[in-house]
């Protein structure tokens, strides 16, 4: 049995967790900064770093305490090394280094996206996952479609060419005057809206598995705001005004439908092309019920998604990914650095 302590501070959650054999959560603690960041309309880096520093010691201690283990029973310390905000990443990595030095336990720097992948190994731990599987990671900062052929073996089939799926939710939410974060608030509004009220652009039916949500965002903007007077550009920095006759619920429903269609169409097509056994959804946007339901209905395959507390950033997923990397022999020294940009590929840990 292998026990891994995971630490995650790549963005706005300070998190620590203890996981057994990569599948069983012994404890998971998340100190969310969401209230703190709501007034900024998103994560703000300096506030985030400071909040991480204030929270991390207590969060790690709580996770270790709740797991009912001592440091002597922990086999490795896994920490998110990237991608993410540099100041935030540094807090977690430096704390993990200190802990590794103090306890003599091996240190592993883990890819945050790989963490999201392994959140699925914590979901229904008794139902084995058979490779190959398709993983769709959709969050505020990421939109990645990966073919996973074995542990640690990823082929990136596609990703966003511009805005991430969660970012599109946030920006459209802001445009509609809905509170941050945009995802759950748009989903709520959409439940009371008509999804065919507006015709927003769909994904191009081409061979690529890439996504583009910037055009969709611009189409929503054009549809719901008062156009600037006769060719005159809007005053710099001015927030566009909503048209009086716009139904927020209908726009939310139609926008969500267009975005989900793009995700489902491409993922279902890739699932068929690569003959996968299952589709795994991860990241904050995977909490979207319409996405889950339509993926299941349209791909005709089992669709696995994490419970809400594992969709958003957490450290259990980092500990789970850490377990598989530990088993594969990964070890980092105390010179471990952060990688703010770090795509998840099969050679992510060797280059």
């Amino acid at each position, binding site marked *: 049995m292998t026990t891994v302590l995971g630490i995650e501070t790549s963005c706005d959650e300070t998190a620590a967790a203890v996981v057994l054999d990569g599948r069983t959560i012994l404890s998971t603690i998340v100190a969310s900064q969401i209230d703190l960041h709501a007034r*900024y*309309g*998103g*994560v*703000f*880096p*300096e506030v985030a*770093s400071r909040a991480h520093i204030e929270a991390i010691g207590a969060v790690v201690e709580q996770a270790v305490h709740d797991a009912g283990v001592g440091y002597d029973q922990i086999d490795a310390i896994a920490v998110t090394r990237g*991608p*993410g*905000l*540099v*100041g935030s990443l540094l807090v977690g990595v430096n704390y993990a280094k200190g802990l590794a030095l103090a306890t003599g336990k091996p240190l592993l720097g883990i890819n945050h996206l790989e963490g999201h992948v392994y959140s699925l190994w914590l979901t229904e731990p008794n139902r084995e996952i058979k490779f190959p599987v398709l993983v769709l990671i959709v969050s*505020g*900062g990421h939109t990645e479609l990966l073919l996973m052929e074995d542990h640690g073996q990823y082929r990136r089939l596609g*990703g*966003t*060419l*511009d*805005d*991430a799926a*969660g*970012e599109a939710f946030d*920006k459209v939410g802001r*445009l509609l005057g809905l509170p941050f974060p945009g995802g759950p608030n748009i989903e709520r509004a959409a439940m009371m809206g008509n999804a065919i009220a507006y015709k927003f652009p769909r994904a191009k039916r081409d061979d690529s598995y890439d996504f583009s949500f*910037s*055009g969709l*965002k*611009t189409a929503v*903007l*054009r549809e719901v705001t008062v156009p*600037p007077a006769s*060719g005159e*550009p*809007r005053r*710099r*920095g001015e927030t*566009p005004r909503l048209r009086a006759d716009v139904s927020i619920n209908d726009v939310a429903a139609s926008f969500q439908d267009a975005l989900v269609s793009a995700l489902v169409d491409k993922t279902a097509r890739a699932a068929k092309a690569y003959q996968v056994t299952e589709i795994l959804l991860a990241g904050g946007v995977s909490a979207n019920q319409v996405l889950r339901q339509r993926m299941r209905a349209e791909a005709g395959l089992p669709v696995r998604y994490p419970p809400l507390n594992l969709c958003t950033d957490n450290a259990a997923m980092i500990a789970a990914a850490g377990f598989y990397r530990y088993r594969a022999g990964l070890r980092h020294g105390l010179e471990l650095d952060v990688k*703010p*940009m770090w*795509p998840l590929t099969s050679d992510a840990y060797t280059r």
Partner: protein
Amino acid sequence: MYNAKGSDSESDLPILKEGQLDIISHSVEQTQRFGARLGTLLQPGDVICLAGDMGAGKTVFAAGIGSGWGVELPLTSPTFNLVHEHTRRADAQRLFHLDCYRLNSAAEIEAIGFEDILNGRGPVIIEWPERITEALPRQRLWVELRVLEPTRRNLVFAGSGKRAEELIASFRELTFGI
């Protein structure tokens, strides 16, 4: 590979004005091509500010700059992370892509190591620069993107400083041969 000598003959001739360039893009692809031409010209220390409303095409233009410059990974929106640091294989140089959409003041940009980024380690692209006007360096190329019609955009290049004027002149020559 991007072809710098490609034709943009469908576009109108630029409006010529001292130190300024005023052009029209008729499509997303053309905006990207304009960006790519500019990208081929960039050197460490160059600061390119991309101003304009949501949906004006800033990220499209930035992605073009990236492809022209030679990024390893395509440029995507940095709104979430505020800054993306790109590299190119040829000479291990770096390119910084910032997005100030979520910032409210110039002071906030310091938190992501703005001064360090400006220290000439690579070209810097800044979206939503109007949010941090006071923190911007004096030497910079300012590109304002304006929505004219669903697919048409007006791009106005204005330089401050000798290097920015040089960039505009080289871009004009590369794009229009004048």
